[in-house]
């Protein structure tokens, strides 16, 4: 599945704006952006790609148990991530590292997760309402829908006050569209007319299974069956990702109900560092999507707008700085104390956990006595 007649693209792979009847409703969202935000798009894409490479290297060097690359999907994530307002809530799958970064998450938390130090552990109230990664495919779609039901019950939808109205943005992939939870989330979202944007990154692969095995119909068309308006976009076009997400999040906040975006992109790397894509896909597919790379196309656009070399040099430096910072901090990480295991199993006191924690502390203390 690749671009169709319906695919919204604002920036051609050659880096020029697409001005047509199909794009005219979206281009004003780009026109109103100030230059610093346009530069942020590039900065975030470049920096997260460098971070991604560094994290992959750290995994190969035994520092991480696993890495989940986002290579190739930067535009889909950066554009939609910037389209959300500060009061919106974002439910990621597990590959949206840059969206977390945009919302204020220290991406070391992701490193810690994949080193085996935590199951996530960040507090969404401190990370710009960027919720935790969920590793069971599609589960988060229901959490997002429930959250958005709560936003509606709380009356923070459709008030007309841009500081009050909220929406929920949920990420998932093409594989997740086969899961019951994603389908149930669409049913509930339609039933309760939630202020919600379903953002599907169709990266064409659910580990080794191609999207053609998940669906015989373009995935954005499925949304119509749930009564949810949908749009297919070029997910490697950061401007399309931003503008179409903006429009749909605005509609959701205004009380017009849930929306659905299918962003066509490509997982340029492996599913995770445990995967070997050479076993199941062809080089020419990768080459096709390489020519549609999100960063090089956007760089051409910025250069044509007159953005100078100094900016690109600064971004490259920032990316290198982050990579070396992440490496240094990773190498400094210690192991958590064993007592952490017993924390936060429950919120209220629980006798079984207390008993086992006390037993384990005494057991450990026994070794100390024996060796002292």
């Amino acid at each position, binding site marked *: 599945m690749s671009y169709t007649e319906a695919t919204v693209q604002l920036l051609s792979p050659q880096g020029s704006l697409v001005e047509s009847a199909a794009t005219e409703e979206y281009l004003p969202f780009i026109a109103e952006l100030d230059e610093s935000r346009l530069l942020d798009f590039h900065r975030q894409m470049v920096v997260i790609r460098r971070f991604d490479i560094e994290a992959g290297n750290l995994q190969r060097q035994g520092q991480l148990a696993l890495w989940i690359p986002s290579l190739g999907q930067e535009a889909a994530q950066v554009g939609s991530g910037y389209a959300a307002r500060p009061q919106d809530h974002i439910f990621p799958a597990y590959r949206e590292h840059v969206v977390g970064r945009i919302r204020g998450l220290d991406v070391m938390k992701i490193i810690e997760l994949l080193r085996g130090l935590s*199951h996530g552990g960040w507090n*969404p109230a401190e990370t710009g309402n960027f919720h935790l990664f969920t590793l069971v495919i599609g589960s988060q779609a229901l959490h997002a829908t429930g959250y958005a039901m709560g936003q509606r019950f709380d009356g923070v939808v459709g008030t007309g006050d841009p500081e009050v109205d909220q929406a929920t943005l949920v990420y998932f992939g093409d594989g997740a569209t086969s899961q019951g939870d994603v389908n149930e989330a669409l049913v*509930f979202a339609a039933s309760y007319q939630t202020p919600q944007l379903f953002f599907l990154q169709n990266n064409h692969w659910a580990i080794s299974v191609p999207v053609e095995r998940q669906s015989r119909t373009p995935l954005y068309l499925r949304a119509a069956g749930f009564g949810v308006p949908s749009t297919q976009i070029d997910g490697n076009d950061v401007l399309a990702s931003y503008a179409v997400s903006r429009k749909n999040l605005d509609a959701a906040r205004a009380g017009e109900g849930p929306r659905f975006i299918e962003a066509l992109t490509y997982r340029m790397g492996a599913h995770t560092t445990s995967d070997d894509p050479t076993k199941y896909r062809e080089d020419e597919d990768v080459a096709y999507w390489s020519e549609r790379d999100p960063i090089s196309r956007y760089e051409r656009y910025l250069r044509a707008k007159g953005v100078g070399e100094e900016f690109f040099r600064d971004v490259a430096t920032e990316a290198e700085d982050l990579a070396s910072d992440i490496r240094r901090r990773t190498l400094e990480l210690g192991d958590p104390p064993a007592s952490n295991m017993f924390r936060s*199993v*429950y919120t209220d006191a629980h*006798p079984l956990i207390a008993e086992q924690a006390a037993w384990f502390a005494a057991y450990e203390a026994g070794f100390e006595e024996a060796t002292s």
Partner: protein
Amino acid sequence: MTERMMPMAKAINEGLRAALRNDPKVLLMGEDIGTLGGVFRVTEGLKAEFGENRVLDTPLAESGIVGTAIGLAMRGYRPVCEIQFDGFIYPGFDQITSQLAKLTYRHEGTQSFPVVIRVPYGGHIGAVEHHQESPEAYFAHTAGLRVVSPAAPNDGYWMIQQAIASNDPVLFFEPKSRYWQKGEVADDGVPAPLHQSRVVRTGTQVTLVGHGAMVSQLLQAAEVAAGEGTSVEVIDLRSLSPIDYAPILASVQKTGRLVVAQEAPGNVSVGSEIAATVAERAFYSLEAPVLRVSGFDTPFPPAKLEGVYLPDVDRILEAVDRALAY
């Protein structure tokens, strides 16, 4: 103290009404619970009183009900989900065990998930497949969940309110065969703590432990045994996770004999856990092995066979006799 006679279905209904009145963040969700009042009428009248945003007739999807309840809890709500029948909980099993149970841990304690899942459970109603099961062990086995089951109307009234007030997820198993038996509800009393087991009949020779609908069978068995000259103590477990062992151990230290009864299949069950724990902690008090009386390790049979599947007074007394024979 005012006491009123009412059946357990009504007592839980009143408990839910009190919770809805006391906390605007409490909301009910489930299949057919609004306009119809639930297939067992436990939520009768609540939608009319509190509106469709507090009592939600949801689409027919158990994972959807639990998964959206999780999201609502993240938003600060205290959702109370109804799973229509015990055997329909499995489509929601993943959201309950992989998400609801683990989310406080995943958040390292910065978020709580005060979600109650009400489950009418158990046999004795002559229903079709998937409508008479006792799946509580799956949830008692899962870290992060609390599991309770009232046996009488007063506990139905209070325990549902305590479950809703808990900051942790609670599986609330309602013995559906007991929905219509009346009992006293002390609605201005001081309730026992949610996770406390309780001696409901004192005796000296054998201890019987059970939960939910089994408690009334145990009390009947104790009455018959008394007629035969055997003094039996009966403990209503009330909480299956955590289990309050103190009254059980104290009782076994007195009687030296323990029979655990449950409708659920015996293999890897709550009764098995109690038997193992009592063997570990009260070994020198025991005069006989701990015996289990359970449903058989078959699927729940067609209704015409439920009378032979479910432990009854005779099977409980047979175990009492065996325990006394040591």
